[in-house]
């Protein structure tokens, strides 16, 4: 039996379109700070560096990078606050 497609609904969205490093990470960090462990944050960015930056930041902080999608030049990162 095929698994139900899982749709993840973020608890919070932030839009970092047009911003460059370090601002997408700075704003992600601020947003995560105000959330509860287990909650999901969606962040939009069109900075070509944000893919590598977000992976590195999640690895360093321990927050879970649940999903990265890209449409045109825009990335959508889904991050779960772990602690």
């Amino acid at each position, binding site marked *: 039996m095929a698994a139900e497609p899982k749709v993840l609904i973020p608890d919070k969205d932030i839009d970092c379109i047009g911003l*460059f*490093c*370090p601002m997408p*990470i*700075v704003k992600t*960090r601020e947003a995560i700070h105000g959330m509860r462990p287990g909650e999901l944050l969606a962040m939009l960015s*069109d*900075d*070509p*560096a944000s893919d590598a*930056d977000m992976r*590195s*930041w999640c690895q*360093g*902080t321990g927050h879970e990078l649940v999903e990265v999608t890209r449409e045109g*030049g825009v990335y959508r990162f889904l991050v779960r606050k772990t602690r």
Partner: protein
Amino acid sequence: MERGGAAPDRVYLDYAGFAPVDPRVLAVMRPFLEAGIGNPSAPHSLGSEARESLEAARAKVARLVGGSGPGVIFTSGATEANNLAIRGVGMRASAGPRHVIATAVEHISVLNACRDLEKAGAAVTLLPVDGEGCVNPDEVRRALRPETALVSIGAACVEIGTTQPLTDIARITRAAGVPLHVDAVGALGRMALAADAMGFDLVTLSSNDLYGPPGAGALWVRPGLKILPQMLGGGQEGGYRSGTENLPALVGLGVAAELMRAEAAHGEPARLAALRDRLVEGLVGAISDCRLTGSRSARLPQHVSLVLRGAKADSVLLDLDLCGVAASSGSACAQRTGAPSHVLRAIGCSPQEMEGSLCFTMGRWSTIAEVDAVLERLPPIVARLRALGLPAPR
């Protein structure tokens, strides 16, 4: 301002973050703030005085850069100059932005301007560096394409102090007919740089880096090289940077450039290098699991950067501050995000080392007594933090 041999109460070793303005610069600036000599475009006699002062400052900056006077475009600082160089050349390139080359250890204003071009459809090559942060000129040669519009390489990486082999790189870019942009922040007046003689096409400089006022800088552009202005308005600075010139700051920048040139000819780089070596040798000798980052030999004379294991930089910096020493971790970006610095990543530092990155930058008023104060105060701080094994404050 020379301090005596006694242990100083305040030790300032964050010149790369902010340099005190030279009192001689300040003295020259004062009348421009107080006497109405403000707008070089004004039609009255004060305006013509302002114009003359502005042009004198331009000539002084050009002399320090080693290029012709009309090439100087005054800006609000190095970040704007880097943006003007990269976007100005990249967007001017025929058929739109095509290909630009920089290195993985450039200043964030260079990297983000490149990414902006990338978003506009350009290809960007970020050259790798070796474990000391040095780019191999052969990598520049290999990365060049027929559609390359610009190569941008900093004279020195201000996070780890490594200087780049610009003479060899410029030979390659000139042979290929591709403009070379050099961000000379940290390096001007501390190492031999001459735009015309070395074959640079654009040079970025910062006023505060030369002990001039903050909020001013310049981009030198080789006459004949076409760029697109990034700030539109009344056509100041030859139309390439509109907005009434910040005359007091630019006059200050001119004097600062002149002083820097005189000082470079009178042994200041060697004095700084001696302080640097004393600090490096003392710290590496006294603290275990601590090493210099960047190159030992191809290095800015005023720059010390270290990584140490088992103690986090923000805890060390906090403790240093409590005992009167102002230093930095080298990367303001990394400090704001909690993510590892792109420069330390590029030179292959381990994650643990990246957390313990310290940077001491010296300048005109740095003394042996200040260096010795760090040698005395830092080792016990590191030992204490390592013994506690406490996490860094968040």
